[in-house]
Structure formats: structure tokens, C-alpha cells
């Protein structure tokens, strides 16, 4: 749809449900996927809570959008950077997060992890290498 391919970064620093930012930013990611850009998501601070396994809104009557993260791979959104320090500060490990995968068509449709656990310093390098940063 567009000739220039830019590096798009979506910066996620908010927990889900308490405010709508996480859900509405995910809507941008889904729409943006149709534009064939080089997309990454970063989960920093409370943003890591978005990816917690086992979200159940049946009793709060909020919209449960956590399953949408699992569909991101189908939209070719395959780079989800999770900051290690943020997880640790919150007493979490990778095992507490939803398993998110994508199928690599260039590698015989091998299933690969979408979540990339990175240190703050590593993620800082990734952020600095972007063309555009969306914050919500």
C-alpha cells in the first residue's frame, strides 16, 4: 500500500482495563498491520501486564481483548519486545505471560516465539533505531 517501509514502534506502558489505552492502541496495531510497515511493539513498565496469561473479565463485564494479542502473529506482527527489568520489578517471569507465536513462511511455517525478552539497554537500542514511535 505504501512504497516506503518505515520502522514503526508502538510503545506500551499502560496496564489493561483500568484505562482504555491498551485496547485502543492494539486497535491501531491491527489497522496498521495492513500497511506493511516494519512493526515492533515494546512492553515497558505496567505495559507488561497486558500480556499476563489468564485474563478473565467475565465478572467485571469489561471487554476481554487479551486473545487479540494471540492473533497478532497472523497479522505479521511478530516482534513483541518485553523489558526484562519491568517483569522483574513486578515479580513476573516469561512463564506468567501468554505464549505468543507466529509461523515463519520462509522457514517451512515453523512456529516461532513473538515475545523477545530484552534488557532495558537492548530495548533502548531498538527504540533508537525506529523511524516513528507511537505512544498511547
Amino acid at each position, binding site marked *: 500500500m505504501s512504497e516506503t517501509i518505515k520502522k514503526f514502534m508502538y*510503545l506500551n506502558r499502560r496496564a489493561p482495563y483500568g484505562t482504555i489505552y491498551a485496547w485502543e492502541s492494539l486497535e491501531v496495531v491491527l489497522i496498521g498491520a495492513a500497511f506493511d510497515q516494519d512493526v515492533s511493539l515494546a512492553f515497558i513498565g505496567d505495559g507488561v501486564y497486558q500480556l499476563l496469561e489468564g485474563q478473565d473479565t467475565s465478572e467485571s463485564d469489561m471487554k476481554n481483548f487479551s486473545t487479540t494479542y494471540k492473533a497478532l502473529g497472523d497479522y505479521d506482527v511478530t516482534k513483541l519486545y518485553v523489558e526484562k527489568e519491568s517483569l522483574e520489578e513486578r515479580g513476573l517471569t516469561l512463564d506468567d505471560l501468554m505464549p505468543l507465536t507466529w509461523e515463519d513462511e520462509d522457514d517451512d511455517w515453523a512456529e516461532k516465539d513473538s515475545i523477545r525478552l530484552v534488557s532495558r539497554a537492548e530495548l*533502548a537500542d531498538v527504540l*533508537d533505531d525506529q523511524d*516513528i514511535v507511537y505512544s498511547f
Partner: protein
Amino acid sequence: MSTLHTVNKSPFEKNSLADCLGYAKEGSAVLMYEDGVYGAMKGNAVAEKVAAASGVKFYALGPDLKARGISEEKLAEGIEVVDYAGFVNLAVENDIVSAWV
């Protein structure tokens, strides 16, 4: 690549400044505006962290300082005051802008 980081929240209300400082690399710029300007004052609990960010240039938005009664002598050392035109220039001079909202 150099980045302009913008911080618009008080460091005592939210962790925007702390998050930003974790990502501001040498050669980058940090602009504090709106309630973010409280992070630019001297003698507060975050002043040491700001001073320790080596190679990072800090700016504060003059109109927001003025609105909040913060005169220049209350600012930590090394903080440069800019107006909205200066804000625009910072966005132009750096390659990307990261908003730590």
C-alpha cells in the same frame, strides 16, 4: 540517530521520567513540559538522577515553568529553558521523538 524524549508528568505522580531516563542514550535530548517541568527543579528527589544521566541534554518548557511559578533560579544546573518554538526546533534537530506519556 538521536532521539528527543518528551516527559509531561510530574516525577512524583508517574514514572514517565524514570522510564525515560532508562532509555535516554548519550546524545539524546529530554524535554520536560506540562507537569513534567517539576522534574527540572533543583534539590528535589530526582535531581541526582537527572544530573547522573551522562551525555543527555535536558530542556524545560518556559511557558509551563512560568505557569507553575517556577523561576529559572529554581531549576537544576544544566537545564536549558526553551519556548514552543524551541520545542519545535528540538523535534526538528533530533531524528525521532519518543513521548513518555
